[in-house]
């Protein structure tokens, strides 16, 4: 019945007039490619539905990764530690809202935050912080869920893991 084009994963998570656009993987991939300072944020669900492998593929393309919650353990289990760092997502978001923040590498804040494998409600709240207070950061979600607080996001696809994985592949192909 809803005239939302897409309902959020938490049914009640309707933040307001500005809600993320459901975006094709190719377009999201191009957005990431085009970003000057992208950051891939991998959360505590990263080991589900094959996301960790996709994250590593993205990392291998040179996009730095932040592993939040306990995700760093999953990367270490996979033996991938090249450009992955542990950081608390809450703290990271706090830093990102400051345009002057120096970034994890000291080279400045990020212009694009890409979310993958996060805890839904936790990530959604923190995306909201960026949406409302950090106009200098573009929030993209390639998670399994529709994220209304992202600017562009996948639709809800958590019930179709295979389809989701091929969407991620499409994203990666663009980077």
């Amino acid at each position, binding site marked *: 019945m809803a005239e939302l084009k897409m309902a959020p994963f938490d049914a009640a998570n309707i933040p307001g007039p500005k809600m993320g656009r459901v975006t094709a993987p190719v377009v999201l991939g191009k957005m990431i490619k085009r970003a000057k300072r992208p950051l891939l944020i991998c959360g505590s669900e990263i080991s589900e539905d094959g996301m960790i492998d996709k994250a590593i593929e993205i990392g291998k393309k040179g996009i730095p990764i932040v592993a939040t919650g306990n995700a760093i353990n999953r990367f270490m289990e996979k033996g991938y530690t090249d450009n992955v760092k542990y950081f*608390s997502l809450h703290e990271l978001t706090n830093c990102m809202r400051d345009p002057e923040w120096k970034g994890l590498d000291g080279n400045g804040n990020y212009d694009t935050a890409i979310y993958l494998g996060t805890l839904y409600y936790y990530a959604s709240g923190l995306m909201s912080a960026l949406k409302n207070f950090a106009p200098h950061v573009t929030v993209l979600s390639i998670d399994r869920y529709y994220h209304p607080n992202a600017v562009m996001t996948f639709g809800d696809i958590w019930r179709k893991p295979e389809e989701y994985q091929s969407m991620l592949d499409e994203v990666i192909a663009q980077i």
Partner: protein
Amino acid sequence: MEKIKAGIFDIEGLENVKIEIKEMMGEKMPEKEWAPMGPTPMPKMADLREWDRLLLKRYPPFYAPQCDVCALCTMGKCDLTGNKKGACGIRMDAMQGRIVLLACLVGCSAHAGHGRHMMHDIKHIKGDLDKIPIDFGPEINVEAPLTRLITGIKPKTVADFEPVLSYIEENIVQLADALHTGQEGSALDFESKAYQMGMLDSLGKEVADMIQMAAFKFPVGPDRPLLDMGMGTIDTEKAVILVIGHNAPPATNICDYVSDNGLEDEIDIAGICCTAIDSSRYSVKVKIAAALGRQLRVVRAGLADCIVVDEQCIRADIIEQAQKVGTPVICANDKKMHNLEIRDGDDPDEIVKDLVSGDVPGVVLLDPLNVGEVAVKLAQQMKPIRGKKSWILSDEDFKKYAESCTQCGNCTVACPNGIRIGDGHELAAEGDLSLMASHFDICIGCGKCEQVCPQNIPIVDTVIKAAYMKGLIQNEKGKIRQARGPIFDTEIRNVGAPLVLGTIPGIIAPVGCGNYPNGTHDVYLIAKEFAERGYIVCLTGCMAMDTALWKDEDGKTLYETHPDTFDRGGVINIGSCVSNAHIHDATIKVANIFAQRNIRGNYEEIADYVINRVGACGVSWGAMSQKAASIATGFQRLGVPVVVGPHGVKYRRAFMGRKDKKEDWYVYDARNGEKVYVGPVPEHSIIAAETIEECLPLMAKLCFRAADTPAGRSIKLTHYMDLNKKYLGAYPDDWTMFVRGETDLPMAKKGEFLQMLESDYGWKIDWKAKKILEGPTVKYDPSFDPTNLARLIRHKKE
């Protein structure tokens, strides 16, 4: 002429008159000078604002809006997205501060309102309040640290808390006023007001617990007996009365009625939430059935023959839920009356008749003295009626439901934790109940899933069934200590030095509600991890209860394996939510008893002491309620950092520090007024952790303090490094920020760490002397006396 002091007095010849010395003109109360009055007795909202601004500079509010619009007045709705302003001119950031203040208002009012309500009950039950002494035994001289600290009052009797409550109430209303459309425009000033509300909250809790302890003679101090805890301990052979809520007086009346009539063999009293804890302080016969997260399941498992609810944290649909399993409900508080009839004047047997017949689903009884008889007789009569039916789903029904599930996912998107109930049903239909049963602990029992199920599957019941089949409910039996309330002055004296020296690395306070992201095991893990490392673990509320749900290989809970002394490795059930005032109190007492600071009306100085010296960290892993907001905010103002679980971002505001901004971490040296960089300690004031693996090292980190001695710092650092390695696979990035010299390094790993400092961070090491030559940004000076308050500088350097 005799010196008059504040208090309540009789007048000779006027038997029915009492007078209270209320106000002295022109000077402060000449109450027997137990201590000189500090600068801010009974502070109003602007009086501690300078302290707040110090905190807010270091820990500026971070907002994560849950909603981008406001609809609080008829000029709205207003779209505030992107920090826009509403029609009243308020911006999104200030609006978030406003909502935080609102949450703290509700939380603080719950505590203070409960305290006031009990004050009336106690007067009704016990008589003159000034005849009930505040005296918790020879081990406690500083009886009410928050009351002394905030109001300047040293209470002698329960009656002395009346002006304290009035102070709280007046100031709650002042702050509520500030919520009106067109008031505060600054997020920072909203947060200063929220701090004030949080401080009032802490005070209200202290009052509430002190008066119930005094009136009902709750036992105090360590070595409390072990009590039964868990759904499995409920003895359904007896008639079961389930008490839920936060206000113990009605429950004490039930206890009295049972014991006065020798009905112990017939009646089992089980409690949920704080009423459980508090009534078990009154009578060890009361079993603690569960904390918040199990509430709906206890009800729906049909375990109770009579439910008595009072206030707070009780299902708003308790009548409807209880009706499903034929349990009548007694509402024993005016805050929660469910459109039922107030029956206080009526004959108890008539009331019981109406309830037993099912004519009414429940009644209201506002006089706690009326509750015991009705509840007991009701349970007795309901037992044979209800006992004829099993309230757990039959195997057939369960199978039918599991098979009817279409895996549509409606339940999952309604579920606060996104639990994949559909997968559970799918497996269960194939006969494998394990996934379904595993949901039992993760589920918070909210019931949102079942109302959106298009197949009308009673999901709460299918989860119960699966758990039951796996024995999870019957075997949910553990031991919890009876709550012990305040910490002894002697204990404070004993731990003062070890706390400062770091042989006790900190005080860990798991407090609050059961909205855990991943079940109760996390809670157990927090308590276990820190207790085993020698921290003092003080628990209250739901976390105190849920910790007792898990056992070690020997089948023992932490309460059995650890003492409940306020000392290294203690695991202490402090008490209910209002009891967590005693945790504040412990930090204040460290300042007062150990460090000899005057606490009377001296909030700023003591908070300054705590934030610089007392390595305490709270955790509210399942923070759910508005009380958790006000509790945490009260800790914040006092200088105690708090970690919340991931749901905590829904409170919208956090206070995080920026370790990369060196300018934020200077304090004065009180000796000479020099500004000294101390590093990011404690780094955050309140922060949400995403997972337990993130939470544990973070808490260890938040126990660092500016005044740590090298011995203390090295032990704290050991745990910080170790917990990172254990839970996040590596040493943390930022550990060098906490190293002020080689003496800060853990003895056992000094070599390894020095090596790292040299190779990874480029510090210069004198390997012969095993000394750091160059590197640390923080200096340590053994006589350094850190403070944030310019007025505490003793000799200002020119």
